[in-house]
């Protein structure tokens, strides 16, 4: 029995009414020109292990640079996790919990970090915001505030299983990149404790050479076991519409963040092309 004829689907006619939405590609006849929502926002990631876990000595000078720049630039601060997130992932992996649970649990730590930043920046207009507050960003900026949020994307329990492990593939690097992408920003700035990318781990090898500029493709092609940012970010950069550059700067070096905010290519810039 095939009763499809009995009750027709009540459709709203549109270019996509008959299309399979999930096969990819551009719908026929569509001239897609996406708008950049807030391209002048500076999306900043404050590292978890690299900055927050270092405490006052590392963070206070960075916050001084942030507050000095806040009337000149629209700054959106996103937080990384750090050692507590690592502890959570280690415990949860030992318990053989699914990746989605790790992602949801791992989300607590960057939120704590964002709340700490908010308390420190409150007198300068620091505002802790949730993913759900994202659409209020224009208001916050108009009021001269510094919105501060977690770097984690909101995937949580809906994070895909990870191949060859349990640690979620979308963590704070991915979240910050995707934030910049949807806002229509060309560049996201990651504040860490290294001057960007080196030929080897500079903490272990003193003769490691600094790499000022490299493409995402080159990085992926090197297929190194370790990477300076989450792999998915480099993959997504190949097909992003707006965010085509990541800048990694050393927040421990005075003035570097300010220069990056002025658009200077300090640290390492990873570009799409």
């Amino acid at each position, binding site marked *: 029995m095939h009763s*499809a004829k009995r009750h027709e689907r009540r459709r709203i006619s549109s270019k996509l009414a008959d299309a399979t939405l999930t096969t990819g590609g551009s719908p026929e006849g569509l001239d897609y020109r*996406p708008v950049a929502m807030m391209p002048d926002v500076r999306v900043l990631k404050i590292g978890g292990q690299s900055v927050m876990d270092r405490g006052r000595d590392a963070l206070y000078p960075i916050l001084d640079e942030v507050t000095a720049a806040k009337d000149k630039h629209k700054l959106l601060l996103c937080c990384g996790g750090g050692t507590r997130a690592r502890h959570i992932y280690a415990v949860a992996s030992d318990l053989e919990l699914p990746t989605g649970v790790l992602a949801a649990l791992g989300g607590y730590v960057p939120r704590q970090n964002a709340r700490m930043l908010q308390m420190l920046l409150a007198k300068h207009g620091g505002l802790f915001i949730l993913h759900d507050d994202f659409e209020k960003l224009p208001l916050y900026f108009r009021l001269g505030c510094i919105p501060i949020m977690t770097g984690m994307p909101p995937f949580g329990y809906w994070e895909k299983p990870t191949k060859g492990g349990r640690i979620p593939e979308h963590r704070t690097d991915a979240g910050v990149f995707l934030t910049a992408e949807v806002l229509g920003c060309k560049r996201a700035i990651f504040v860490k404790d290294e001057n960007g990318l080196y030929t080897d781990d500079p903490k272990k090898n003193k003769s490691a050479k600094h790499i000022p500029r490299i493409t995402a493709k080159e990085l992926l092609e090197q297929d190194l076991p370790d*990477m300076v940012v989450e792999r998915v970010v480099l993959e997504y950069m190949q097909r992003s519409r707006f965010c085509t550059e990541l800048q990694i700067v050393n927040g421990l070096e005075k003035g570097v963040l300010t220069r990056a905010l002025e658009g200077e290519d300090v640290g390492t810039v990873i570009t799409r092309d």
Partner: protein
Amino acid sequence: MSKLVTGDGRTHIESSLMRESLVDRRVVATTDSDGEFAILPDVVLVGLGGQSIFDRGRAAVMPLVEELKTLREARRAATERAAGSDKVKDPPPMVLGVGGGTRVRHTVSVALDLGIPTGGVAQLVGAMEEANAVFLNALLAKHGSIVMQREHFWELPLYLESGMLPIVISIPPYHFWEPPPEDGPLPTHGSDFGLFIHAEVLGMKKLIFVKDEDGLYDRDPKKHADAKLISKTTLDELTKHMPDDVIIDRQLFVCWQRARHVEQVQIVNGLVPGQLTKALAGEPVGTVITRN
């Protein structure tokens, strides 16, 4: 008791991942193991099509509502009976989800024309699926349904334990953070994928999609009269010979490749009374896709 470790300017908590780069494949591999804890392994997730069922209105929806009511009553009776009694035919506990249907298409069509970025489109479409969840809940409320909001994720066992019929929000919460699609501007993480990942993270073994076709065909049966029904297939086979028009999200199959819990995805015709009940009883109606 874990201790704090200092000495490199940072304060660490001792753990197997301490000081490690979580991007390092070798480190990620240390978190792997063959097993995985299954949170709610006996629950079956049932997804009702938006366009295929809901947009057909009363004639398609009400018989399914009746069927769900009967299934829920049978389930309650089973839980109230003494343990050890014959419960071969008892339906498993289930969680429902609903797609968004034609309004999703209209939303996407208008949004793309306006130049809304992909993440913005993803942020918008969920509203239509939530609306259908509310529709379904209105119809099933007196039979114990409840819409499970995302922030109430861990209340699911409570709903199930009390014999309710939870309806989950099908679209995954990727929202503004939808990753750039491989091809074209459309978000790829739709409601079928969302239900799949919901089942997977909770360690469920089986999902049933209720649509308006007898199952999966080698071509779109609405466009091709000679389309052949695929009644039994495996994920590998399907991945190798993916039909051009698939009745469920492609992303689901991509994700299934690396999933650990979901063993079976069944697609049944909701316009045929009793198909869902048979599928829940383990009968191979419609299309049965197994992982191996």
